[in-house]
């Protein structure tokens, strides 16, 4: 119970900080929009090609924005040694991890209501409001799958000289299952699901989330013990 209380307090702290430093969050959102725009330039003004790639572009935009958000989330903690203060408070490392991972997930989830409509307009995808809600839900699962290992690795790399290179280098190959699963699932929502496969892909994505969240939570304690 104490741990749950700590997690809630940490998430509230992170969200409050995010709200006070709105420009930072806004820049990540803008980055996502620019990425979506660039994909259409890369493919060319071919509506059919854009439609088929829409799900992939959307998930790639999430992936690219996530590295910015994840490394940012720990950079703040290192300034003024806030992390050491938290650990001395004493906040349990497990609570610290789940708090951080949860606030990262929430932040990435907030990108969905902005980036999905942008993608729908740019790539001329025709979907209903219910489909939109489904996409946002799947985006949430993908964000959770990204945040769990992302938070773990951001904790390690955020203090290193070349964190901007290292975090994607470690994270991107690792989250290939999440990416494949979410691209496939979102694609089924956007372009139709004649074989009724959406359910199994969603379950797969949820399964990955469970594995990552439990494994990374256990390992984070060791990372913090060495002094993040």
């Amino acid at each position, binding site marked *: 119970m104490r741990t749950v209380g700590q997690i809630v307090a940490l998430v509230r702290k992170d969200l409050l900080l995010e709200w006070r430093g709105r420009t930072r969050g806004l820049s990540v959102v803008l980055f996502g929009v620019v990425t979506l725009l660039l994909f259409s330039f890369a493919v060319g003004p071919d509506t059919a090609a854009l439609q088929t790639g829409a799900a992939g572009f959307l998930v790639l935009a999430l992936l690219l924005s996530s590295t910015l958000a994840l490394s940012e989330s720990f950079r703040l903690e290192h300034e003024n040694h806030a992390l050491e203060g938290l650990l001395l408070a004493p906040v349990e490392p497990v609570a610290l991890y789940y708090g951080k991972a949860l606030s990262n997930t929430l932040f990435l989830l907030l990108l969905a209501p902005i980036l999905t409509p942008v993608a729908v307009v740019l790539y001329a995808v025709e979907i209903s409001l219910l489909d939109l809600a489904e996409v946002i839900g799947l985006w949430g699962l993908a964000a959770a799958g990204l945040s769990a290992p992302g938070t*773990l690795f951001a904790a390690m790399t955020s203090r290193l000289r070349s964190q901007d290179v*290292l975090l994607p280098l470690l994270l991107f*190959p690792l989250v*290939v*299952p999440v990416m494949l*699963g979410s691209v496939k699932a979102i694609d089924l929502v956007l372009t139709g699901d004649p074989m009724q496969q959406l359910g199994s892909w969603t379950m797969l994505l949820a399964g990955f989330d469970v*594995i990552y969240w439990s494994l990374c939570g256990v390992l984070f304690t060791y990372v913090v013990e*060495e002094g993040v």
Partner: protein
Amino acid sequence: MKRLRWDAILGLLGVLLLLVGSYIGLFLAPPDRHMGEVQRLMYVHVPTAWISMLVLTAAFVFAIASIWTGKPKWDAAMTGATEVGVVFGALLTAQGMIWAKPTWGVWWDWDVRLTTTLIMVVLYAGILVLRSFVDDPERRATWSAVAVIVGYVDVPLVYFCVRWWRSLHQIQSSPETVASSMVVPLRINSFAILFIAIWCIAQRARLEMARRRGESVALPPKRAPRTAEIPGTPQGVDNV
């Protein structure tokens, strides 16, 4: 002349076995009914695949031991196994491509095993890069061990996911389709590559231990700064 260590003997044995096994595979074993001479690639490709998986499993076990005990020797062993795993995995991918070209007609096909191996190689290469960026030895040991554990758990997920993604594809050949005259060179080469892998891991682990000793000499020691100046004190001895 230095005396021969166990791993040197093992390494030499491995090279010898590899020569024998490859000779049998190349010249004595019959060509495959379906694939003809190209099938002879199997005698290096399949053992490399088996041993790569084995080496990365060893890296996972060493990583757990390293994180559990905190002893530098496990960290060194893990480094060796990870690096050898990356080298062998890259070799495996290249061999797979060489085999894919004559049989499938393309250098690259999004085959489950080929794709998984490539992702695995990139993943573990990233861990080696991470190691090179961390200066503090203990932090480096823990962080890379954590990354190796997460990576190892991830590999089956990647495999499963790519398989689903591809959905239609050939199933891997079951043992009974392999003729008994092909089993002998396959088995010899498997042991050969296993011995070579063990030799490489041992060498890399020794190197890591030597580097770590070097670090503790070169950097000012953290805990007891004055003991290093007492004459006769063995320097850089790791008694953790």
